[in-house]
């Protein structure tokens, strides 16, 4: 893919300020899933959200993707606020999650065309863009195959391709390699590296330590709706005097709770 990296904006592409999310559960009363999370992501950075199940990662990402309204706090994607300017935010954002599926009876080409068009990609350039994506993700021989007939690895490629189909500057991946085999996971990691080189800002949520170690420029350790630490891997190692990310994670969990 040959698009040049974006020029650096005046503000970071992703700014999160004191984001909170409270659910009203009928039986248990108010449940605070996210308790004031703040962070920023610079352009061309892979920012990792690392945490165990129920830490609040997915809720945070859903708020950024405008799927859930925040209870308090603000978040900005390319200077558009997620609560008040949801339409503009979604045009600048690509969101991938295990809960985001595809239309099974559409072919690969149709799927990519569809998502490029509904996300506002210029109609005249859609065909070229789709071809580019097909070439990049090596989906050439499957272009006319229905999604329901693809293997899980190819389905995932199509899912990632549709996430970037409209060439958004900010990408969010919520546990993208869950259920993938080693090779497919490696493929995904390679794709992510290429996207970073194009200047995309990527937020990656994962609980796989090796993945976070390998890919993320900065890592935020999340637990119980709070960020316990947010720094590069080297800084975390220096602070905790521990080498492996797993040990660092457990250290913060023990001290943070």
């Amino acid at each position: 893919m040959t698009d040049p990296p974006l020029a650096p904006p005046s503000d970071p592409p992703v700014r999160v300020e004191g984001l909170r999310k409270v659910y009203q559960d009928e039986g248990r009363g108010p449940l605070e899933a996210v308790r004031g999370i703040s962070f920023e992501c610079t352009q061309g950075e892979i920012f990792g959200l690392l945490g165990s199940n129920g830490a609040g990662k997915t809720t945070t990402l859903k708020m950024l993707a405008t799927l859930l309204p925040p209870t308090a706090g603000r978040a900005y994607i390319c200077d558009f606020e997620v609560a008040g300017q949801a339409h503009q935010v979604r045009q600048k954002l690509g969101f991938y999650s295990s809960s985001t599926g595809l239309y099974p009876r559409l072919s690969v080409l149709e799927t990519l065309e569809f998502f490029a068009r509904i996300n506002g990609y210029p109609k005249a350039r859609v065909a070229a863009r789709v071809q580019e994506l097909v070439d990049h993700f090596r989906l050439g021989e499957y272009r006319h195959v229905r999604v329901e007939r693809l293997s899980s690895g190819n389905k995932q490629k199509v899912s990632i391709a549709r996430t970037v189909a409209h060439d958004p500057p900010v990408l969010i991946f919520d546990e993208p390699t869950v259920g993938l085999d080693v090779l497919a996971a490696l493929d995904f990691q390679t794709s992510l590296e290429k996207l970073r080189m194009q200047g995309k800002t990527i937020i990656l949520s994962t609980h796989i330590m090796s993945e976070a170690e390998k890919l993320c420029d900065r890592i935020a350790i999340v637990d119980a709706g709070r960020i316990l630490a947010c720094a590069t891997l080297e800084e975390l190692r220096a602070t905790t005097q521990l080498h492996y990310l797993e040990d660092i994670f457990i250290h913060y969990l023990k001290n943070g709770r």
Partner: protein
Amino acid sequence: MWTLFYYELRHILRDITQLLVVALLIPLLLTPFVGNSFQRALRQSEALQSGTFFVAVVGPRAQEVRALLPQLGKFKEMPLTGSPGEALRENLVDCFITVEDAADVDSPGDWRLEPLATRSRLAETPRLTVHYNQSRERSQRAQIAFSEGVGRYLSRTRDRYLSQLGIEPKRLYQVHSENLASRRQEQVQLMASLVPIVLIFVLFGTGSVTALDAVAGERERGSLATLLVSALDRRTIAGAKWLTVVVISLTFGLPQLLGLLWNMRGLGGHSLALLSPGSWFCLFFFCLLLCLQVSAVLLWISARSSTFKQAQLLYMPGLLVTGALAAVSWMQALPLRSVMVLVPISGLSLALRDSLLEDFSLWLLLAAAASLCWTLFLLRSVADNLTLDLLDKPHSDVPVEQMRRSLSGDILWYYALAGALMVVVPGNLPILSGLRGQVALIQTTMLFLPLVLLRIYRQPLRPSLRWRNTSLSNWTICLLAAPLMHLCANSVAIISSWLLPMSEEAVRQMTQLLLPKDASQLELFFLIAVCPAFCEEMAFRGGLLHAVQQPRDRLHPSWRTCLLVGLAFGAFHFSVQRILPTAVIGSLLTYVALKTNSIWPCMMLHLVNNALAVFLSSLAIDYTQLPGWGWIAAWILLLYLLKRLAGVGPDREEREASETTAEA
């Protein structure tokens, strides 16, 4: 939206062969069987009218009737081997006639079947009893044929006797009935009753799979989440999906409907070909509107379901409710020119019927407008329910005030739907059409509707319904104002009767409804004063006022809020003539509720007003005898008293605000 619409259609029509076979070919192959079954039933019914009936004649004087049988019609007597009752049960005879001396008859004896006696007036004339089986059409027709045959015989006998007495039989009145409706008109009438219901079933059948999959199925598969993170807003997504359902319903439903009508041409389907261009246009127009509305209903069912399976479970109740609403086209006495025009599905059903009967009026336009409003309301609800997972209760995080504002946008629609049902249901259940039935239905609905809505929209009940006391001075003022309010309301009623006079018959009917003679004063007091005072106040000064009030109303009640609640209150009395006086009362009560921030004074005022109406009506007092200055004085005094109501102070506001937070 058009991109989404195009790709949704493409996705659905991808397996076009399977779809054509299942959704088009098989139903088209089956419709001849349905149509032929109807036609065969009709032909059999017509054949029965001219066929021969098998009867048995028993009893001590059976021979007299046996000799008459050939003169009575096409009857053939069958020999009996057992009892006549058994023969009838085993369908060996269509009916049997017992011929007895009139003095001998005590009870039907061991015959269990429904007897129909032709009573004789002279002791020597035998008593004929026709025993038939109501559950068999042939037996019914035999009974009718025998009764008519005896009637004709008696008529001839009478004429002969009169002639012998020298009286010209032709001088006596004879009644003949002449049906001026042409066969075509009768057939169109039948079609007009059938078409809406058939259309509902066809549309449900053709649109359901698409609609149920469009949201519930996609929610289950995860592709809805993908759409929700795209640049499309929820209303666009809802609109595109709805259009898809409409197109599929029309594409596959229209051929099925035409096929059904073609196969039912013997029942009158061919009469449609003789309709005027205006009727054809209206027919297509309202069929289209019905398709739009049913598609919205189906999509709404899908949006309210977490999974495809749950949507399938809701499909049948949805079909029954919609079919029942469409079945009003069978009720010939139910006109479009009534509040029915506002009822979803029913209004369109009656408009379709009127179109086929070439009964054109402006009410058709009103039906179309109401239908579009209902469709838009449903689509708005679909858009609001386009969430990832209903089980996550996406509104659970929304603050109470935001939910209240959401309720204020929807509450009038809920109330309108409840009002429509309160009109339709008594029409179908006679037990609910009297005062007691209406009180039971209407007041129960008024009581529970706000409770349910407040619960759904997570509003704290006590502060929302204003279940709090007010000061002693306010109570005193309201007690003094109560009789004045009754007087002032009657002054408006008098003006209303000048502007919109009621016919004497209408007045009589209303009086009969509201003040039935068989009800005691205590019962009337309970039904007309106590129940409405509690239940209607809960609905209007409770739930509705809470939803529509503005923040500044707490300190300075606005005329807009008072008028809105008052008009809604007036409309709920379902009478054009009563809207004005009840709206005025409603507005005044709303003012009292806002000023005192309590519902209890409103209930007291309402109770006193209605109780005075009951009590004074029993004294037959004529309000028009009151001089004009009396009315004016009453108004001035009332407004002065209401102005003196002590409003909500800042301390009380803080206290009540903290109550609201605690409840939330």
